[in-house]
């Protein structure tokens, strides 16, 4: 899958809004990639481009070397879309049968339902299914063409914690070797657990791209917190900011908060020369990484 210089504009009233703004992205076959970003970052628009549901105003999108719509017609690509998109007065089995009938050589209806774990509710009306059950139904629909690339657009939005875990267990059980999975989410923990690679988006662009460990390290390093004498705050901060590796240092009423790639040096200095107490060192969380990377782009 490759996207080169894609731009997609929307017009609301008189102003044009660039949902995707010069995006470049390559995803190799067989990888599991998370597309992470706040609301309005352009995740859904990017996935729509890959699925051929919308066309870029500029740039190119290719999926397995084909135009996206062609790849969809051949059954190479499939997706679990965000909420909506189901007919409420059909039963679960009818919905799967209906979508299966549009493909030339689909998986048997029973098998798709079995793999998505909805065999037990096959006679239930879609309107009576919970959010998690509807999402599994969408997953069954996505399995029908047995796609090589599976796209999930915020697949667990609106699910409670246990439904979310069950959904990912199903996904994991199904993730056969060779199937590429791209999923959009704003749950960092999901990206961290399930993806091998994380692509972070903000304002229609890629702001970070790498393994989960790389992203975490690059964005934050470590965080050192300690208490100092409030009277000497200004001096202490000046000293710390001069240290190599320190990216950020703040203090409030004697509580010091430092971000650095070299936590050992900061800790040594604080405990020996600067008279700090109650010192704590923590690894940066994905949340911190996320906030830093996206805020940096916004400002």
């Amino acid at each position, binding site marked *: 899958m490759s996207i080169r210089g894609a731009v997609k504009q*929307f*017009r609301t009233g008189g102003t044009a809004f660039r949902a995707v703004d010069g995006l470049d992205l390559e995803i190799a076959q067989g990888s599991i990639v998370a597309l992470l970003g706040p609301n309005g970052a352009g995740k859904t628009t990017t996935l729509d481009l890959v*699925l*051929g*549901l*919308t066309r870029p105003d500029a740039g190119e999108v290719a999926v397995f070397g084909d135009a996206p719509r062609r790849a*969809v*017609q*051949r*059954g190479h690509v*499939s*997706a679990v*879309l965000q*909420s*909506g*998109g*189901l*007919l409420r*007065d*059909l039963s679960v089995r*009818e919905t799967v*049968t*209906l*979508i*299966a*009938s*549009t*493909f*030339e050589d689909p998986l048997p209806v029973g098998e798709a339902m079995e793999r998505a774990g909805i065999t037990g509710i096959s006679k239930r009306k879609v309107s009576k299914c919970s959010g998690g059950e509807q999402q599994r139904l*969408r997953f069954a*629909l*996505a399995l029908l063409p047995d796609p090589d690339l599976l796209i999930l657009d915020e697949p667990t939005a609106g699910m409670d914690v246990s439904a979310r875990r069950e959904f990912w267990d199903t996904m994991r059980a199904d993730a056969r070797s060779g199937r590429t999975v791209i999923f959009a989410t704003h749950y960092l923990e999901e990206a961290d657990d399930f993806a091998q690679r994380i692509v972070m988006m903000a304002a229609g662009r890629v702001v970070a791209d790498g393994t989960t460990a790389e992203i975490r390290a690059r964005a934050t390093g470590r965080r050192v917190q300690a208490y100092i004498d409030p009277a000497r705050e200004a001096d202490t901060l000046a000293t710390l900011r001069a240290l190599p590796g320190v990216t950020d240092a703040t203090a409030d009423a004697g509580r010091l908060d430092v971000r650095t790639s070299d936590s050992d040096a900061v800790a040594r200095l604080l405990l020996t020369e600067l008279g700090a107490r109650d010192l704590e060192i923590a690894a940066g969380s994905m949340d911190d990484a996320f906030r830093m990377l996206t805020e940096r782009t916004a400002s």
Partner: protein
Amino acid sequence: MNLTYFRIELARVTRNFSSMFFVAVLPAFLYIVFGAAQSYGSTDIGNGNVSAYIMIGMAAYGAVTATVSIGGSASVEQMQGWGRQLGLTPMSDTQRVVTKAAVGLCIAIIPVTVIYIIGASTGAEATPKVWILSALAVLLGAAIFSFFGLFAGLLFRSESAVGAASGSLVILAFLGNLFFPLSGVLLDIARFTPLYGVVALARYPLTEGYLASTGAAPTEHDELWVPILNVVVWAAILVVATIWVSRRGRARQ
């Protein structure tokens, strides 16, 4: 055409009791009350009797209600995400439209069949030619009105708007000279309303253009070109309006 899709869509509509009520049960009931049960029902009129005249009107009302609600729900569900779901399948827009149109036509046949059977067994009389030609004219009118449903759905994007569109058919049916014989100024206005042409055309084989009246003898008469012109003009308006509103919707996305 995709037969599985066709079968499931057809099942979906027929088991929806409230829509089937307005499509088949209500018009059949109206026919029995205003046609079969009335003493004037057996009065001769052109190539049949008054019961047949009312029967054709009610069949048209049921058939048009069917296609308006199917057309409307088609455009609403398309915009509420089902279109995106189908966008992930090899199914083309043309296939989808053809399948939906076939479903609409099948559903429109239901009220015509039901009301004609009830009519035949409760004293509606007409020559065989009248039965066949009026049924075909009713189905043609119903096909045209499916654009009215599509248009309303695309314009207002909600289920309730589609409900309002089918509801407004009661007014159009009244103005279409369908429930009650109009006369005077009201009839002059009625000739310009969309259901008038469809109903007048469907009744033409029966009365050869004479309109039923509440008096002793028919006083009003339409040449064949009047209903035909009405149908052609309204078909053009509805089709153009639907295309216009669907373009507008696409530009916004």
